[in-house]
């Protein structure tokens, strides 16, 4: 391995924190989704790193699975964003509070 695992974990951690910050701070649905994507990719990076470090194929397999799932997730969520935009004319997440208890 060219890069030490610790560096990789630090980069992944930073990516995850940034994604989380984006998800928490933004109210725009698309930005929240982007934040979620960043977080997923941070996890994927960790998995690949771990797989390379321990010379185990499992991690890479999970990442492939993760990519497939992510693409499905993105397509559904973007479709919903379009739908919501049509329905209410906004994609501000806080405007959708019908599920209030």
């Amino acid at each position, binding site marked *: 391995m060219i890069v030490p695992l610790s560096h990789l974990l630090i980069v992944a951690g930073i990516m995850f924190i940034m994604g*989380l910050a984006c*998800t*928490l701070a933004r*109210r725009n649905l698309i930005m*929240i989704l982007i934040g979620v994507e960043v977080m997923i990719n941070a996890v994927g990076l960790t998995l690949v790193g771990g797989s390379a470090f321990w010379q185990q194929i499992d991690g890479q397999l999970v990442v492939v699975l993760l990519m497939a799932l992510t693409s499905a997730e993105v397509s559904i969520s973007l479709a919903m964003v379009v739908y919501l935009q049509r329905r209410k004319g906004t994609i501000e*997440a*806080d405007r*959708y*509070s*019908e*599920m*209030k*208890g």
Partner: protein
Amino acid sequence: MNANLLFLILLLPLFGGALNAMAGSYLPRRLRGTLAVVAVAAAFVCTLLLWPLSAAEGTRITLFTWLQSGPLEIGFSILYDALSASMALMVTGVSTLIHLYAVGYMDQEEDTARFFALLNLFVFAMLTIVLADNLLLLFLGWEGVGFCSYGLIGFWYSKLENAQAGRKAFLVTRIGDVFLGIALLWLFSLLGTLGIPEVNAQAGQIASGTVTILVLLLLGGACGKSAQLPLMTWLPDAMAGPTPVSALIHAATMVTAGVYLLCRLFPLVSLSPAAMLVITLIGAATAFYAATCALAQTEIKRVLAYSTMSQIGYMFMAVGAGTVSGAMFHLYTHAFFKALLFMGAGCVIHLCAEENDIHKMGGMAGKSPFVFVMFLAGALCLAGLPWSGGFFSKDGILLAVFAQPGGWYRLAWLIGLLTAFLTSLYTFRLLFLVFAGTPRIEQHPHPLPGLMRWTLPPLALLGLAGGLINLPEAYGGAEALRQQLGSLAGTLTPVAHQTEYVLATIASAMFLLGALGAFGRYSSYPGRQQSLSRDFLRQGWQADSLVARVILRPFDSLTDFSWKGIDLSLIEGLLQTAAEGCLKNGERISRLATGRVSTYLAGFGWGLLLLLGWFLLSLAGHSS
């Protein structure tokens, strides 16, 4: 002779009652009464024809097995021996006459189907008690009698006090029934059988202390049914029912069930001298108590009710003194003359336009000499006119009590003698107030139906000549009833004829004293007097208010406390608080669910922080 025919005695009244209960309202009025009378009369004829079956040890026969469970096997079976046969004969005979009388008495009544159905069922239940071969079947009849008397006392239930009188009778006798039920269960657990002959035969195996308690429990049951102290308050109120009911239930049959129970189980009862003494003393106390109460009553039927109680006290004394034949003898003569008195009282009430108050009567002798003669016959038997049926039977009891050793028995004898005097006094008071002088109020008499008239003479004859049933040897008799009962007659202590004559003379003197006392006081109408002691006696020594104060009111406050203190405050309060707490919590938690995605995401964030913190802490714990 086919012993299976014995079941006809039981089933005929049941059939008559069932038919009247189910289809009576569709039958013509005349047919309802006829059906009831025919059913009971047929039962009487059956009892008479099957009399030979009661000879020697009697006949035991089972119709079918009623209950079977492990060692318990209860058959629907009849024990037809000298005791039950003679009792059944009396019950069916007197009931037939009373049914006939009731047909006349209830002539103007609407709902006669219910009346005759209950009357017939009552006779069925009573005969079940009398003929039962085992104690559980006896208990069935016992409860049936209680139910029918409840229905009959409250027959005119549209008046609240009648309904309450019925309920009172039901509830008070129920207290006694609980004791009887306990006694039955105990007997079964001790002996493994409930058959009456078996129980009597094996009673000797039971420890003597247990026998005493058992007999006292049986006595409790008998006291409830027979209106003895302290369960006597229901009988005077039971006069709310129609007069034939009073004659049937509260004179001739039901109230004697307690005496019959003790006689039936006499071999068991006689094993405990202590319990026998208690029976005697309760009988004596009740006899005296009821006689004093009868002195001050103003309603004709209540006088008779208290005198019934008093006479049954005598029967208890007889059982306690060990003479079953004496108790049964008095039971029979009493049934005859008391039924006669009640039926005569019904005629009097009829003639006075449904007036019950003896202070408003008077002069009845002139108005209806026939009723007067009949009532006089009954009254003389009750008071103990020498050589009438009541004289011999009462005398026999006093003699048996006198013959028992011990101071307590002597005391009971003295009380019995005093009660004999009081009996004569209140009987003649009643006679003078009702029949002597001139009518004190304007009366519009109802006509007296022939059925109400002509049922009286047979009873008068039976009452006056009742002594022949068991005429003592001292008077040249052969003690027929005692011979008939044979081994069931109890343990009699022989007494010298000399003593017997002396005691009879004393009893006659008591009769004369009472009659003279009543003559001196009531031969001319003294007017209605009010005094505290009179009121005290009239209300039965305030027994009702005593019961109210000692039992009902504490019970009321206990239930009140259970309701308001425990149920409303404690239990419902706790539940209310818990429910309100849950509701408030739910509201508080539901405020967290804002419906906004950002809130939930923030929740994720905090959760992640918490997890990471936890990992860090445990890492620190590992490394150190």
